[in-house]
């Protein structure tokens, strides 16, 4: 494009913006470079964030491990978490939880596991999650039949921490789920059926439209 073709049209000013001192190509290469640096930086910061999250959780666990099991259980319950969910997160049966509530023996490992669960809820609150238990119960994504609590029960606290405090949605869900289970698309999604509320107000199941 020659400047003379644009004379009087205002195009000269546009052309000048398109052809600054460094040129389009150079700007594009500079943008590429910045993108690569930002990607590397994002990856390093994400890893650092993960490590700090684990360290923070360890500190919170140590703090809560000083509390006796009966009090920890009552505390967790008052936060709205169910006995089943506690049992699943700590990988014991609900009858075992019932025994602990009655003051029967708890192994040190299980005591720490309860403290870790309690500590995690503190961390989630600190990351501006208003109702951590509700947040844990909700599915990780639309049409994915997997909750954050399920990730916890599968001992993937690391993934839960990664999702927490992600109010800008920078965590890409699919790669995260790929790390959890490469077969998640076939195991945790149902493309054939959906739930709905019928005329009697009961939740039913029907084929997807």
């Amino acid at each position, binding site marked *: 494009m020659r400047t003379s073709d644009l004379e009087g049209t205002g195009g000269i000013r546009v052309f000048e913006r398109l052809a600054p001192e460094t040129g389009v190509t150079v700007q594009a290469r500079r943008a590429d470079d910045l993108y690569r640096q930002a990607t590397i930086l994002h990856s390093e910061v994400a890893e650092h964030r993960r490590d700090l999250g684990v360290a923070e959780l360890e500190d919170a666990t140590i703090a809560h491990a000083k509390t006796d099991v009966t009090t920890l259980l009552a505390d967790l319950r008052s936060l709205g978490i169910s006995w089943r969910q506690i049992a699943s997160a700590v990988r014991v049966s609900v*009858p075992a939880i019932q025994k602990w509530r009655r003051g029967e023996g708890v192994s040190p490992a299980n005591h720490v596991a309860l403290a870790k669960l309690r500590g995690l809820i503190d961390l989630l609150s600190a990351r501006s999650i208003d109702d951590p238990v509700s947040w844990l119960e909700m599915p990780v994504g639309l049409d994915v039949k997997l909750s954050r609590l399920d990730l916890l029960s599968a001992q993937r606290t690391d993934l839960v921490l990664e999702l927490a405090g992600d109010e800008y949605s920078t965590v890409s869900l699919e790669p995260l789920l790929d790390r959890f289970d490469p077969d998640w698309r076939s195991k945790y999604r149902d493309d054939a059926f959906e739930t709905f509320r019928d005329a009697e107000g009961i939740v039913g199941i029907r084929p997807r439209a």
Partner: protein
Amino acid sequence: MTATLETPADPSDLYLARGDECEGFALRPAFTGDVLQVGSQIFQLVQHPCAMRRGSELVERQVASEVERSPTPKDWARGNYKRAFLPNMEGQELAARFDLLEILTLDQIEGAQRIAILSQYGVNLLMQRWVYHNARVIVPTGTFNDALAGPYEEADLVGDLMMDLVESGATRADSSKAIEGWLSENDHERRRRLETPQFRSTVRRDMSHLGDQWLSDQGLR
């Protein structure tokens, strides 16, 4: 999602309680999947939780499958579609027979000894096999979970709160009436909230406060 009948990775995943463990859930409402000793026979309740009830009351006649000894296959997707397996039941391998149905009365159910209560996953798997037996349609257990989570949560909460209230000196009848009244308020709003993951924790917290407040009002705390 994979369109095959599912096999549990671990038999213990099917159960909330077995044998003596069921005593800790004595006040939990009867629910889909409950395994009952009725006299010398064993049955499993197989209807959808909402089909078992009219409102919150159990209907007078409940469909149940006879339970008998039966080896548990490695792959639950290949055949044996008339059975719902109950592996590792106090040292026995059992199965409910969908082709041997019985109608149990309320008296029989109330007089029965509950020898197993299924987990949420166990109920989902039972429903998957029951639906496949009756209609040759495979619905993933995850979808059953979405549909049945509300009633299962309600059974959990009612059982827990009933236990707390009765252990504090309340009668079963008064406790049951108080809990039912609370869940039914505002056109069953809290019951509906239990169907949504986002609101369940709120209902649980509120139910815990209900228990404390009610006991205080009754002069039991």
